[in-house]
């Protein structure tokens, strides 16, 4: 390549990195191929890279499933509402902490730092949620995740390096502190807001735990919890299949439709993951910086 000398060190390095990238990417390629396959064919013939009996049937089926659509709606709602509120409230908090003259500033920082070292744990949290009426409510997905120490620190570090003069000139023009925050600070902070938004948005999109343990109302479950249910079902099915193969009967293969529980599961997995996979490459330039900002203060 352009006359550069390729040492053995470089060749091994490139080869290992390529192998690493492949092993990271391959599972997704495989699942995509499986989800686009005729379910029965996928059970009979091995898939490596390309679908067997190409079809959109799996996707059509899950998008006709009202349970899935409801869950998808819950996931989208909680992600949008949870992310917007988290970013706005944390930014307000962090902005106040940048005021060096604010009495009690150190105290407030410690007040939010201590819980990162030691917390009440799962059960007291559950009891609290119950007392607050959060169990089996949509708000259990939003309210417990409104703030986070590390995100506040990342935001604070970013706000600190904005020039003070902007704020002062806005004040001379008659802006109050809130107006300064809304009109000057927030618009200037898109990169860090996008970073925090991505962090918390990914959390909301992927959280299955809250739905599994804090919600029993089936109409309130998010997609990831649904996927978790499918996962435990399929483990049970695998056991059943093992038993069935021992007794000589075959299950699943006699279905007339092109789909199988497994192919539907793979399509559900793709739909539960794709939005995030489409977003993150575009956010990359932001979050790499965001992590660096966060790392400065540890």
């Amino acid at each position, binding site marked *: 390549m352009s006359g550069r000398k390729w040492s053995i060190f470089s060749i091994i390095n490139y080869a290992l990195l390529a192998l690493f990238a492949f092993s990271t990417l391959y599972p997704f390629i495989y699942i995509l191929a499986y989800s686009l396959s005729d379910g029965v064919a996928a059970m009979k013939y091995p898939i490596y890279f390309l679908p067997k009996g190409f079809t959109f049937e799996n996707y059509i089926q899950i998008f006709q499933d009202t349970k899935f659509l409801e869950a998808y709606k819950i996931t989208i709602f909680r992600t949008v509402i949870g992310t917007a509120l988290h970013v706005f409230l944390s930014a307000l908090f962090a902005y106040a902490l940048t005021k060096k003259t*604010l009495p009690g500033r150190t105290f407030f920082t410690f007040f939010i730092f201590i819980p990162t070292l030691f917390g009440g744990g799962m059960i*007291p949290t559950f009891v609290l949620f119950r007392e607050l009426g959060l169990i089996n409510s949509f708000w259990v997905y939003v309210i417990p995740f409104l703030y986070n120490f590390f995100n506040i620190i990342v935001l604070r570090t970013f706000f600190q390096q904005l020039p003070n003069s902007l704020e002062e000139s806005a004040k001379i023009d008659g802006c109050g502190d809130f107006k300064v925050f809304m009109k000057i600070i927030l618009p200037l902070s898109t990169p860090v807001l996008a970073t925090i938004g991505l962090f918390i948005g990914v959390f909301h999109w992927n959280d299955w735990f809250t739905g599994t343990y804090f919600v029993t109302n089936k109409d309130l479950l998010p997609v990831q919890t649904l996927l978790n249910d499918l996962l435990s079902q399929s483990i049970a099915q695998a056991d059943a299949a093992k038993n069935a193969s021992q007794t000589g009967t075959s299950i699943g293969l006699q279905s007339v439709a092109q789909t199988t529980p497994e192919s539907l599961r793979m399509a559900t997995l793709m739909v539960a993951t794709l939005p995030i996979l489409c977003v993150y490459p575009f956010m990359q330039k932001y979050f790499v910086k965001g992590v660096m900002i966060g790392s400065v203060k540890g």
Partner: protein
Amino acid sequence: MKNHIESKLASQQVYVTKNKKNIWLKIWQHRVFYLFLLPGIVWFFIFSYIPMYGITIAFKDFNFVKGILGSPWAGLKYFEQFFNYYQAGEIIRNTIIISLMKLIIGFPMPIILALMLNEVRVAKFKRTVQTISYLPHFISWVVVVTLMQRILSPYGGPINELIAVLGLDKIQFLGNLNYFYQLIIGSDIWKGVGWGAIIYLAAISGVDPQLYEAAKMDGANRFRQMWHVTLPSISGVMVILFILACGGIMSAGYEQLLLLNTPSTASIGTVLDVYVIKAGLEQGRFSYATAVGLFQGIIGLILIISANRISKKVNGTSLW
């Protein structure tokens, strides 16, 4: 406008006198900022500090009807119950083994990846590998485990198909005692290594290029430059992240283990976090589970404080 003049006057006064009396004036001046902080203070109080008080559940015979305050005290009964539980030792051992293995094998991985990426001179290749490496960070553990189940399946999974093509026996990977730890550690690294490398890459990009020039003059090859320049330059970041990781030794990652641990691997896969969730949320033994959780939290706290102390003494780097 009135506000503005007021606050300007006030700040001048503060500047001139700096008296203790002025603290109230200062607070009044910052009233809007306290309003900004208020929702957060209330939130942290409710969602972080009230659960800390909720730990008293561990010392009570808690039941929901009576509430935390009304439930009778039980002393150390639930701690005794846990330590007398015949599998308690096993659970503690599993927790330590799994998180120690994650720490020892998993901790250096992002560093190695960052060093390897740093040696890449083809920008496009570097960017592509990096983008791909972040991908697993953005998917949930449910998705990872579903992926693993499909890929490693003895029924048509590509790994087993490949094994079969090679003429070997198919392997049931999941739920298998022989492969459990490998899969736990492997999937943990797969999911986190790319993301973990970001911070080291950032640190590496901050190394003074003159140091490399000097090393080159002294005849250091690429590997020696890496060893003698890059590594020492990022050691500060390494220490901080290591301290943080040490605090987590008593928690082995509950999401992953809740999903991957099956009855067939329970003897080596049941860890404290998972046990707390199972005993508490699934079986409703709230006081007992809180006691186990408290034991875990205290050990974690002791570990992180000692790690911080030690590193402060040894090389002056510390979290606080």
